[in-house]
């Protein structure tokens, strides 16, 4: 009789434990679903925001606004130079000991 009672008690404890575990899992599952929905919702918002951003930054609009509001125009070729055409900083003047007297060798 004692054994049976003990068994029933164990079954009841285990059953309750299992039930609470299930409740916790269900809760986690609901949270997961909620998060998934939220991600989907944010993704949808992203789609809309990206479309709006693209609409507002379309080159045709930027071209028009930069010209009318900022007076900007296309860059003229004379303002574009290769990096090699920019003169480097002049280094410290050095004289070579064996060089002809009075002649300085300047390195650029």
């Amino acid at each position, binding site marked *: 009789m004692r054994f049976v009672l003990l068994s029933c008690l164990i079954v009841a404890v285990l059953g309750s434990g*299992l039930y609470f575990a299930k409740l916790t899992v269900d809760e986690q599952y609901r949270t997961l679903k909620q998060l998934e929905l939220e991600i989907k919702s944010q993704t949808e918002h992203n789609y809309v925001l990206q479309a709006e951003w693209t609409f507002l930054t379309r080159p045709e609009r930027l071209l028009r606004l930069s010209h009318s509001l900022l007076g900007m125009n296309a860059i003229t070729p004379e303002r574009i130079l290769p990096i090699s055409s920019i003169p480097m900083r002049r280094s410290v003047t050095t004289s070579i000991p064996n060089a002809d007297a009075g002649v300085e060798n300047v390195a650029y």
Partner: protein
Amino acid sequence: MLLIFTLIGAQSIALALSKPKTSNHSYATINDKARGAILDQKGRILASTVPVNILYADPKHIFNPEEVASALLPYVPKLDKPTLIKRLTKKGRFTELDRKLTPKRHSAILQLGLPGIYVKPATIRIYPQGREAAHIIGAVDRDNNGIAGIEKSQNETLASGENVYLSIDTGLQTVLRESLDTQIKTFEALGGAALILDVKTGEIMAATSLPDFDPNHIMTSTDTARFNQVTKGVYEMGSIFKVLNTAIALETGAIDMQATIDVSKPIRVAGQLIDDYHPIKGSIGLAEILVRSSNIGSAHISQLIGSETQKNYMKQLGLLSASPLEIVENGVPLVPQNWSHITTMTVSYGYGLSVSMVQAAAAIAAAGGDGHYIAPTLLRRNANEPIEKLRIFSTETSMAVRSMMRLVVSNKIGTGNFADAPGYLVGGKTGTAEKVENKGFNRKANRVSFVATFPANDPAYLIMMMVDEPIGQKHSYNYATAGWVVAPAIKEVVNQIAPILGVHPVDITKPENSQNLLPPMMLDGKESVYASF
């Protein structure tokens, strides 16, 4: 006691094993298989799918249509009252009232609390760039199935949720469209088309056809506006074909740079007269024939090339069959059935063979580039993707061709002086083709075009522009030729896109640049140089 414990245990196990209560809540409308986006070369959105709310009615639940219509009317701007009543009294359980309900109107309609009026979530295809590249992107039907352009040709990929990257660059597209639009308005033309091609990869970086349409409202556009003149329309290209004729002549050895041809007498053949727009006296060389755009000279050269050889080259350059372009609106060339010696003559200066602008651009890119033919594409190439190149012309031939194209722009006797964008070494060729009318040609209705490559020492980009039936203006001394109508727009486009593309001004006096062009040559009895500054 035993029974109680047993029951508690059994109930606990039953509860533990019971299935969780599922939520009836559904929010998201864009599922994982939402139609993919179309993006430009730099990842800017050209077409995307966004959630919307559809306003609809269940006519069975509407008891007083007149009253409901009056209340609803301010919030459905696209419908008038009779139409609204008609829809509310329609048979069936569903009648759509508005497909793009804004949040503001949605809220206002909900506050009306009208029975039988409902809102359901859905998705809609939007094109945030509006008219830019509309012909290339295409459109979808109400069920989001592609019905035109890339939307149709790449429907399977897009429907599976994958994005499609195009070779189009929206920045370049805008510049090209604006410039073309300006010229069309200035010269009161019917329309026009233009494209920018990457000579080294075959990628079409911009393509515009005017008039165009807004794909967000495709149903309100006309057939003319929906017609893609860049890829679908096939035209006799006129004198820009002389570039190909020159390249073929040099490549086959039919003529060399030193030879001269008498162009003083018009050619009369099979009832047709071949003459020049500006008559030229005496004999001139190959370069001068191209620079002065002599029809007579080109026709004579074509006879030295021969019909069979010319046809073979046209075939290799992809001009005798539709190009493998990734778009459904892809024109099939009109090839003469009998390629007679008269055909050979007329094809040499761009008549008798009709091709699409894309095909002509790809062929000229081969002749005026580095001699390789690359099939044009509308899809972005991956960084390490191998490019199939077919060598058609030798490096010597292509160097000579681009040198002569440069002289068309830089030499004062050239027909394309207005295209010269200082520093960028623009090379090009003008073309003026009379339009076909009643089985003949209408001398007063022209389609003028210009094909340009830059920089001429190492062509990286090709621009082609065509204007349909321009009318001469006071500032153009009533001329409506390509040199007056299109060349200035080419200069404008080059000046604007070169900095975007990272093309730096070229100093042609430097050996590393000049070695890619022929030495200065004699034109009109004077030495001609390529520099423009």
